[in-house]
């Protein structure tokens, strides 16, 4: 069986002589079922675009109202005072905190998730891979507030050992120095986020690894590759773009995670040089903790910060697409 015959476009249908009714007959009669489905799918597509455009317009409009009256510099101010006159606020701390916590989460979650996915698809005996995959799925079903409570009540008190160790051995770098404060810092947030985004990355990677064609793995095996070499030569390259997509889904969740961060972090409007010292904040956490007490103007300012998160997410996704597209001629899809 040659796969190219199945992926080729179907040969153009021979056009019938055009009648007075024009192009409709050239493509054959349209049936009611086709028309209804066409209307449904086209309508859904347009609706999606309209909703996205409406969100963008709403965010931009409300944000513009607030930014116009900002006394500080919106991008660089280390303050969030929207109830005073003149109002001074900026997103520098939030952008820093959001990106740092997400980067920590990705650095922990992606390798672990890929390893779990490889274990489930290529190492575990069949009897075991099912239950392991099921448990990972369960992790995805836990509400984020539960993660937040667990993080605050269990994870935070248990971080002291790790923090002390990091401070002893890597404290000299400045990034891992610790002032003995409660470990409600970016590192703890990042670790908690990594657990939360683990299931989505694992599940998508697992599906990708499972779809590696048998013939690519056999190609490596027949050359005398060990199991790890098969994974390195066939499975990982084939799954690469899928793993990137999976990571982006996880990153999206980490960037936008609200309740868990708000429950664990002890926020402040400054940037801590050390990942171990409490303080800082993220976009979503800041919105959640300030929104209920904010006045009309304060809400507009928070919406402006939400718009920045929106833009960051777009940029990250765009970058991922570029990475995937740049080597597409080498991708497994060409096989």
């Amino acid at each position, binding site marked *: 069986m040659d796969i*190219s015959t199945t992926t080729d476009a179907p040969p153009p249908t021979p056009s019938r002589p055009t009648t007075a009714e024009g192009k409709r007959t050239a493509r054959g009669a349209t049936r009611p079922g086709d028309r209804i489905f066409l209307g449904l799918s086209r309508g859904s597509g347009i609706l999606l675009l309209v909703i996205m455009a409406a969100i963008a317009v709403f965010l931009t409009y409300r944000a513009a109202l607030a930014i116009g009256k900002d006394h500080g510099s919106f991008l660089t101010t280390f303050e969030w005072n929207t109830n005073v006159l003149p109002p001074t606020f900026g997103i520098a701390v939030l952008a820093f905190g959001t990106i740092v916590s997400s980067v920590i989460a990705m650095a922990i979650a992606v390798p672990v998730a890929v390893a779990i996915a490889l274990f489930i698809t290529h190492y575990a005996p069949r009897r075991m891979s099912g239950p392991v995959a099921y448990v990972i799925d369960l992790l995805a079903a836990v509400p984020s507030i539960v993660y937040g409570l667990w993080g605050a009540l269990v994870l935070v008190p248990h971080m002291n050992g790790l923090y002390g160790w990091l401070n002893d051995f890597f404290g000299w770098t400045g990034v891992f120095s610790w002032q003995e404060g409660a470990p409600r810092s970016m590192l703890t947030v990042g670790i908690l986020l990594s657990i939360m985004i683990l299931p989505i990355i694992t599940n998508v990677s697992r599906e990708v690894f499972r779809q590696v064609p048998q013939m*690519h793995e056999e190609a490596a*095996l*027949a*050359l*005398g590759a060990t199991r790890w070499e098969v994974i390195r030569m066939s499975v990982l390259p084939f799954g*690469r773009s899928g793993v990137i997509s999976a990571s982006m889904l996880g990153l999206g969740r980490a960037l936008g995670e609200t309740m868990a961060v708000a429950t664990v972090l002890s926020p402040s409007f400054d940037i801590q040089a050390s990942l171990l010292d409490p303080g800082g904040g993220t976009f979503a956490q800041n919105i959640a903790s300030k929104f209920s007490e904010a006045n009309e103007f304060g809400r507009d300012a928070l919406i402006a910060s939400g718009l920045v998160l929106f833009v960051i997410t777009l940029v990250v996704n765009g970058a991922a697409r570029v990475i995937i597209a740049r*080597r597409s001629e080498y991708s497994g899809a060409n096989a």
Partner: protein
Amino acid sequence: MAKRIDVSGLTAYYGSHKAIEDISMTVEPRSVTAFIGPSGCGKSTFLRTLNRMHEVTPGGRVEGKVLLDDEDLYGTGIDPVAVRREVGMVFQRPNPFPTMSIFDNVAAGLRLNGNYKKSELNDVVEKSLKGANLWNEVKDRLNKPGSGLSGGQQQRLCIARAIAVEPKVLLMDEPCSALDPISTLAIEDLIGELKERFTIVIVTHNMQQAARVSDRTAFFNLAAVGQPGRLIEIDDTERIFSNPSVQATEDYISGRFG
């Protein structure tokens, strides 16, 4: 250097299903042996037992002996990975590594083995591509992906990849069944050249192909669906196609089968 294969009493299973039963044969070094027979008769399964690829399939297991010269491939302490480095394989569908360049595809086996020099690598890749009659077509685009080649070129790339590690035996599982007649002819010519250096075993559904390329031909058949496949006879190709000693062989090659 090419080695002799000596199979005795080989039976292979998929789980509890017996796929082939009690096969014994000898394959001479530097010769081409073709396996023919109806679909499902176990010729591909048998081929895959010769480099221990059969056991990769879940539930796959083998009884019996396969001697490569004097070494039993299924002996205790034999590493299947080492076996596959000695016995190369070319598959039905061309399967170059899609994420690797043409050069890297050919070099893949060498890099697995670990001990090579950079200058050596270039020579081996060139020699292997020349050996697979592909060098002239790809020498200007060695760093382009192998998946960009035509089907016939991809299959010759896979052959170059297999011979780059200097195996003792080359197994080919219907290597031309996904190719057009011109590419098929190119592969058949290549097989004729390769048998100077390797022991070649080829599974084919195309009896003219078996007659054209092989020195010896083995006919496999199965008594009924669900029954294990058996070796009916193996003999010089000329004799199999002119005057086989078993009636079933004659029925099959003359098209009176089933």
